[in-house]
């Protein structure tokens, strides 16, 4: 699954960020999942938990992973209209294509009010890391938040 490769990216990114911030342990990871990409949440969450020990680090073995859905909202550059991805109907192949690459929504979606394909995605494109929490120095154990 494509969910798996995105999960690898999340784990790699958290390790990078933890190293930049000098964390010894990551305790919590908040992952935001945009509606446009239509990730299968269970598969994605399973992959994230499977991969916590990947890339040789034990730094996030015990981290709690929280997924948060974000609605996909589109805005037309031509007429200013805003609409939600969840409110429109596509066929299965189209949903699948957008799952693989959310930008190809420009091939299948048009502004409901003016037919323009010239829209931006305001929110909810794909996977992003909202924040991570972790501790520096095993003994002290104080948590801190890192956006």
């Amino acid at each position: 699954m494509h969910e798996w490769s995105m999960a690898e990216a999340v784990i790699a990114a958290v390790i990078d960020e933890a190293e930049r911030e000098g964390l010894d342990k990551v305790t919590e990871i908040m992952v935001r999942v945009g509606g446009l990409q239509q990730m299968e949440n269970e598969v994605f969450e399973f992959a994230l938990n499977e991969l916590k020990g990947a890339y040789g680090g034990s730094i996030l073995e015990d981290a709690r992973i929280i997924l948060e859905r974000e609605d996909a909202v589109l805005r037309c550059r031509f007429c200013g209209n805003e609409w939600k991805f969840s409110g429109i109907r596509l066929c299965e192949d189209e949903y699948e294509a957008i799952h693989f690459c959310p930008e190809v929504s420009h091939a299948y979606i048009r502004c409901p009010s003016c037919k323009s394909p010239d829209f931006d995605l305001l929110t909810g494109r794909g996977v992003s890391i909202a924040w991570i929490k972790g501790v520096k120095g095993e003994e002290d154990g104080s948590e801190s938040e890192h956006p």
Partner: protein
Amino acid sequence: MDPRVSILDRRLCEVRRIIAVTGGKGGVGKSLITAALGLNLSRLGFRVALLDLDLTSPSLHIILGADDIFPEEEKGIIPPEVAGVKLMSIIYFTARNPSPLRGPDISNATLELLANTIWGEVDFLMVDMPPGVGDVMMDIIRWMRGSEFLIVSNPSKLVLETVIKVIKLLTELDLPILGVIENMKRGERSSWEKLSGFGIPFLGELPYFEDLEDAIGDPEMLLSSGFGRRLGEIAAGLI
């Protein structure tokens, strides 16, 4: 934070060489040269993958006659094979629908493909670049570290200024330029005269082949055409 950037080096770590085929101008033959070089390298025994980054007018699927292939999903996106080379293209997802993409869409789609494509072990990843000196050129430089650049030029006055800009840009940034291929040579006129001063290699010239159009869509015919054989010689020089 966008997690995709952190996985790029791992995705490309089994790729031995990345060759980006560029030139700045449209219609100089970048796509045909990318395909013909890739096919030749594959026939020489190398594992080859092609990546079409001309996202709004992709060509490689047409050149390779890749009609009914689609990638598999298996812990990522597995590029399907056609004529012995792996091909990754946005065409799998856009089909034939008009899909205008603005700059940030282009960057996002490129990053999505790079973050999720599982290339496997590859000797040459050939990247077919769009015309223009913009998002894709800048994204390859920042996201496909270690790329080597192959420049396609031709004798027209309309091509020279842009090709020079591309050479200057890559030189400024100390990026490796494999050299210049002069395509569609006719008669005496040549752009290499004006490019030779930049201290980069000349890889060879290709005449205008009247029958080349017939080979589009047929990889075997492309390989055995005059164009394909000439690129076989150039490919041998790249190894």
